């Protein structure tokens, strides 16, 4: 190639600089857009993740399984002892199960006598954990159920035993669960025997601390912590964990859910608690569609079974 007096290289450098500058400005504009209109940007992000990640299902499953298998091999030697222990525990559990069943029947009878209605709408959708947040600074998981399955923001996610987190961000096929351990997670709870209300504040540690306790003296390590239902976000009475005192003498909660292996999560459908916003509605209710007219349906103790069983576990 013959070189001219003014070679293209002389122009290439400033043009390049300009283009790179434009690129950086574009990226910063994206950042600013996110900062200004965060909900919309997060929706776009959820949409993108929703499009991309389920396509990589075939990667996630085998790799995750093989990692778990490797871990399983490490603990292979301990399996025999564990097995024996489990057998003994199973024996004890049988006795407990018997007791629980009797209590449950008794409970159902009493509820029936009292005509108590224990949130019959509390049904659940079960999802499989597809991916986690990927960052050591954020604690969330992605479920393979989404708006398609009727999920909405704010619903509670539990594993078999305790509360795990809250839905935050719903795509068509996926939904993100912010775990209780995430630094932005705040859940109103009540500590059981004393009835003290507090806020469970995630701080990126395995045992999140209790904040805004009125009388910490009334609380002893080992007390049960359940959701209080304040603020209308989560249903009341979901088991969260038990109180423990950390080395810094702060009251923390040992979570009941098994955070070591979050595999299947149950998302509770809670159809927003009714809030009275303006007084006019009280005077003249405007029924949008009269779905049912007539007496209240009979209480359904079947639905409360799960809740009762969980309560007797802890």
């Amino acid at each position: 190639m013959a070189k001219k007096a003014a070679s293209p290289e002389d122009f290439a450098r400033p043009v390049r600089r300009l283009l790179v500058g434009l690129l950086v400005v574009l990226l910063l504009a994206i950042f600013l857009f996110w900062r200004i209109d965060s909900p919309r940007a997060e929706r776009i992000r959820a949409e993108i993740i929703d499009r991309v990640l389920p396509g990589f299902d075939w990667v996630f499953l085998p790799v995750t399984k093989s990692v778990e298998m490797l871990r399983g091999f490490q603990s292979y030697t301990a399996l025999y002892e564990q097995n024996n222990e489990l057998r003994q525990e199973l024996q004890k559990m049988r006795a407990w199960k018997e007791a629980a069943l009797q209590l449950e029947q008794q409970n159902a009878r009493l509820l029936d006598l009292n005509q108590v209605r224990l949130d019959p709408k509390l049904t659940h959708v079960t999802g499989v954990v597809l991916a986690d947040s990927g960052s050591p600074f954020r604690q969330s998981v992605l479920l393979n159920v989404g708006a398609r399955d009727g999920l909405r923001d704010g619903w509670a996610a539990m594993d078999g035993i305790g509360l795990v987190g809250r839905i935050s961000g719903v795509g068509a096929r996926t939904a993100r669960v912010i775990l209780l351990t995430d630094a932005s997670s705040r859940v109103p709870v009540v500590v059981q025997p004393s009835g003290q209300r507090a806020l469970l504040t995630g701080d990126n540690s395995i045992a999140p601390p209790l904040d805004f306790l009125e009388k910490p003296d009334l609380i002893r390590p080992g007390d049960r912590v359940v959701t209080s239902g304040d603020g209308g976000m989560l249903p009341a009475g979901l088991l969260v964990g038990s109180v423990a005192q950390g080395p810094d003498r702060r009251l923390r909660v040992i979570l009941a859910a098994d955070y070591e292996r979050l595999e299947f999560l149950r998302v509770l459908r809670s159809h927003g608690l009714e809030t009275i916003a303006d007084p006019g509605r009280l005077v003249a209710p405007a029924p949008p569609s009269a779905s049912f007219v007539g007496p209240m349906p009979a209480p359904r103790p079947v639905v409360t079974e799960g809740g009762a069983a969980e309560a007797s576990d802890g």
Partner: protein
Amino acid sequence: MVDPALREIWQHRAIYVAVAAGLILLRLLPVNTTPGRLPGPDLLLCLTLAWVQRRPDYLPAGLVAAVILAEDLFMLRPPGLWAALTVLGAEFLRSRAALTRELSFLMEWLLIAAVMVVLFLAGRLAHAVMFLPQIGFGYATAQVLASILAYPLVVGLSRVALGVHKPGMGEVDARGRRF
């Protein structure tokens, strides 16, 4: 007939995208959902800086921006901020590639470490200016230190496995210019 030098460049761009996608997917695997463990190195940053330092022609700024923006999106970071910073850092290294080519590896390592620390501080500053919640300083510093420590490893691996080496004396780029 494709020019072998050009083909090599495009091969390496494809490799970069594939490795980045692999790293992101690997971190998304739901194998550890317990919090509180020490954060590992930011391998994608190491890879990007190492490649830009060694072979600036493999990684155009647009590719770096696209890959890191995708990482931003998937890692739930504020989108665009870290991508912009990384592009700036990469361009800083690229504009000095001719000067720093002769440096010993130790000096290169120091240079990269300085760039990483500056990027980290700039990111924190941007968070503070925008009133965004910050990650705990100790945690974040641990990640930067881990990245700095991981850098030689990434350089070695990309040299041995991916064939990314500094251009030799007489080598020319795709357009026939000398480095």
